[in-house]
């Protein structure tokens, strides 16, 4: 224990509340006030029937002023109820709000004990401990910092687009970074969306256009976030621009370059079911509307090897000399909307791995359904282009399997499988659609009605059971399953199988998230600050989450969450300046030896080692005041404001010594 220089003694006021009979019925409140009135540090002691009432509060305000109190203790109910009330009263009296102590003698004393004598003795100890703490409380001011009212959105899918529009419509500038050549994400690849069967591209393209034309949105496609430094309200972002080799301001989409390009590669937009050239437009409604030259598949960006595209470009938009560039932007908030991918079929060896062309995943089937897809919207199977007369849909492919694959439910598969089966039945009226399911989860609005249509009107056969094996025999795919409701094995000869592969974390994003130190859960999805109370914020201040990067969800939820994240960003930007609780853990330079133990204790990376001075420096804005570092510090250099080790020892002495 350190011996502190004798400070000027505090003038603390003690106000013991009866709370009617809630406290006074068990605890002798008068006795408590009486016994403690001569305790060192206490200048005034009284009891009153209802402290939280107006007269009660007024009494506190008046007493503070009259008796020149510099600290008060209200012995009453739990601080979760009225701490703010009394802090406000104190503020009105000119007292620093951090000089208020609430002693809980109701929930944690009078309401849980029956022996009046013991309860009173305990109340005295409780209040004594708060006196001990109050004697060493310091005036604290909330920490203030400026806010840069610009937002960065990482990801140009529907969630990123929605968040961007909402924040921009609030009046703030937005930078939207998308790593692909066009915005649109996965939603632009879908055909119809459940439960309304809206054409996905028809409802998304207006949003895409709005974003591209919005005066306050800076759209950066084919760009990637390289790193983010700084803290909430004050981030510095490094953004990498990948060379497109085509000047998007000049390209007029004439398409001549594509015609002459000799390189043919699988088309990612069509999930590899068709081909594109090395110079390509991802899809007709791509924004920005420009061709992109895929350097990896181009013959070498070297006019000696091939220069055909450049030769035919009237607008002279093609430039092989473009280079990667890095720009820096400053923003105050970041919305992470990096989307998802599907679990790889390779992991499901029992379904053939990826061996069979006619076993496809949900997105591939979407492209087959799509009018702009590889089959022009006719349902044909990939291997031979025949119209399948029997399709088996397998739900829960890779999800809800804690032993071998992913334990969670992928949420959207039941609905989109019903939609797929329905679309198939509409287009191939004599086709047989069979769905193998564990459950059918249709929680959203109009979802169950949609599913019932599939069963009752479209006559899709739903079999409750898992599929154990899928293999090819001749022209057909044999599906082995079980009908658990009858207890019988089921064997189906199908022409095609659609696997509802689980939604998983987006490929290639993990490194970025690690760099940004954004917390993810064990599955790689973004971790929210609190699953119920703070679902769109990250634990890292200034980072917000939206869309499937946070976890599997459908479009209505994605849009809602994106707007919620935008609203939270709006909350942040609406502050004149940022205010942060000051009960943080600073560093006493003189005691700090730079051992660095506290650095690893902090979940918020609020502490860093200053190499020049050899001591630890704390970013008080990032510090959330948990105290883990304080407990670990061997020299006592890290002390929590208004709950220092000295205060704790004093409290223990007050509580435990007879």
């Amino acid at each position, binding site marked *: 224990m350190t011996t502190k220089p004798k400070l000027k003694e505090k003038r603390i006021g003690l106000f013991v509340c009866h709370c009617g009979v809630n406290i006074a019925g068990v605890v002798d409140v008068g006795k408590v006030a009486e016994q403690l009135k001569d305790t060192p540090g206490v200048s005034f002691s009284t009891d009153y029937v209802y402290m939280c009432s107006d007269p009660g509060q007024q009494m506190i305000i008046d007493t503070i002023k009259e008796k020149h109190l510099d600290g008060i203790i209200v012995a009453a109910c739990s601080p979760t109820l009225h701490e703010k009330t009394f802090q406000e009263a104190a503020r009105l009296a000119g007292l620093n709000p951090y000089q208020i102590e609430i002693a809980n003698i109701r929930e944690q004393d009078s309401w849980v004990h029956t022996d009046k004598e013991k309860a009173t003795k*305990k109340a005295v100890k409780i209040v004594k401990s708060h006196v001990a703490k109050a004697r060493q409380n310091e005036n604290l001011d909330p920490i203030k910092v400026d806010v840069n009212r610009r937002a960065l959105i990482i990801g140009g899918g529907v969630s990123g687009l929605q968040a961007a529009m909402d924040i921009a419509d609030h009046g703030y500038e937005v930078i939207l970074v998308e790593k692909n050549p066009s915005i649109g994400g996965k939603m632009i690849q879908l055909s119809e969306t459940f439960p309304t069967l809206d054409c996905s591209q028809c409802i998304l393209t207006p949003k895409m256009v709005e974003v591209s034309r919005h005066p306050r949105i800076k759209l950066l496609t084919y760009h990637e976030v390289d790193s983010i430094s700084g803290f909430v309200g004050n981030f510095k972002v490094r953004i990498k621009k990948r060379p497109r080799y085509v000047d998007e301001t000049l390209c007029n989409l004439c398409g001549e370059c594509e015609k002459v390009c000799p390189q043919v590669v699988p088309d990612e937009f069509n999930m590899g079911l068709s081909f594109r050239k090395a110079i390509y437009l991802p899809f007709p409604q791509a924004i920005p509307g420009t061709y992109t030259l895929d350097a990896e598949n181009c013959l070498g960006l070297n006019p000696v090897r091939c220069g055909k595209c450049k030769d035919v470009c009237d607008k002279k938009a093609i430039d092989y000399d473009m280079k990667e560039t890095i720009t820096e932007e400053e923003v105050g908030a970041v919305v992470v909307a990096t989307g998802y991918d599907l679990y790889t079929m390779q992991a499901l060896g029992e379904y053939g791995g990826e061996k069979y062309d006619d076993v496809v995943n949900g997105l591939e089937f979407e492209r087959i359904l799509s009018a702009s897809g590889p089959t022009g919207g006719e349902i044909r199977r990939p291997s031979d282009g025949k119209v399948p007369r029997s399709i088996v849909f397998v739900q829960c492919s890779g999800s809800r399997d804690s032993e071998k694959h992913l334990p969670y439910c992928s949420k959207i598969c039941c609905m989109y499988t019903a939609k797929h089966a329905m679309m198939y039945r509409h287009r191939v009226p004599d086709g047989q659609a069979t769905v193998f399911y564990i459950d059918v989860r249709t929680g959203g609005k109009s979802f169950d009605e949609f599913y019932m249509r599939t069963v009752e009107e479209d006559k899709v056969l739903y079999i409750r059971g898992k599929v154990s094996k899928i293999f090819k025999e001749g022209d057909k795919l044999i599906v082995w399953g079980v009908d658990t409701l009858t207890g019988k094995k089921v064997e189906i000869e199908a022409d095609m199988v659609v696997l509802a592969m689980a939604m998983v974390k987006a490929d290639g994003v993990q490194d970025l998230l690690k760099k940004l130190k954004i917390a993810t859960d064990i599955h790689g999805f973004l971790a929210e600050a609190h699953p119920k109370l703070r679902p769109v914020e990250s634990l890292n201040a200034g980072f917000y989450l939206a869309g499937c990067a946070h976890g599997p969800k459908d479009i209505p939820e994605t849009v809602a969450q994106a707007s919620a994240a935008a609203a939270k960003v709006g909350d942040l930007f609406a502050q004149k300046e940022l205010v942060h609780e000051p009960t943080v853990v600073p560093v006493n330079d003189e005691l700090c030896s730079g051992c660095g133990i506290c650095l690893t204790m902090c979940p918020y990376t609020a502490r860093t080692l200053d190499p020049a001075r050899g001591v630890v420096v704390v970013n008080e804005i990032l510090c959330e005041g948990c105290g883990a570092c304080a*407990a670990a510090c061997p020299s006592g250099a890290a002390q929590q404001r208004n709950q220092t080790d000295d205060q704790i020892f004093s409290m223990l002495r007050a509580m*435990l010594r007879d």
Partner: protein
Amino acid sequence: MFEPQIMCFLCKWCTSSAADMAGTSRIHYAPNNINMRVMCSSRVDPQHILYAFKEGADGVFLGGCHPGDCHYVEGNYKTLRRIALFKIMLKDLGIDPKRLRLEWISAAEGKKYAETMNEFTEQIRALGPLHLNEKALVQEVVKDE
């Protein structure tokens, strides 16, 4: 009858709220405990625990959030590690490690809090008074009183 004195360090977000809930639900339990609210169970230093024993506590209780639910992400894991090691030390110091109890009690588990307090009180009662300050070799000199 020997009435044990039990010092409880409760984390604000979970166990202290559970204690409040026990109160709101009027669930009665033994009056032998006295609580200190900390922001996180990881704020509690083994020094604090030893000091509590020294000042007259016969038992010390630490309450935190369930693993995975810590308001500060991983504070409770730190507490878990610390207490695991500290219990070994307690034995060496001549204090029965059973006098220190770490429990995860969430804000919704008011009943569990009350039951735990009753149980722990009886356990300490059975172990008897600690009287560590009398057993200690060095008398502490108190500076300010």
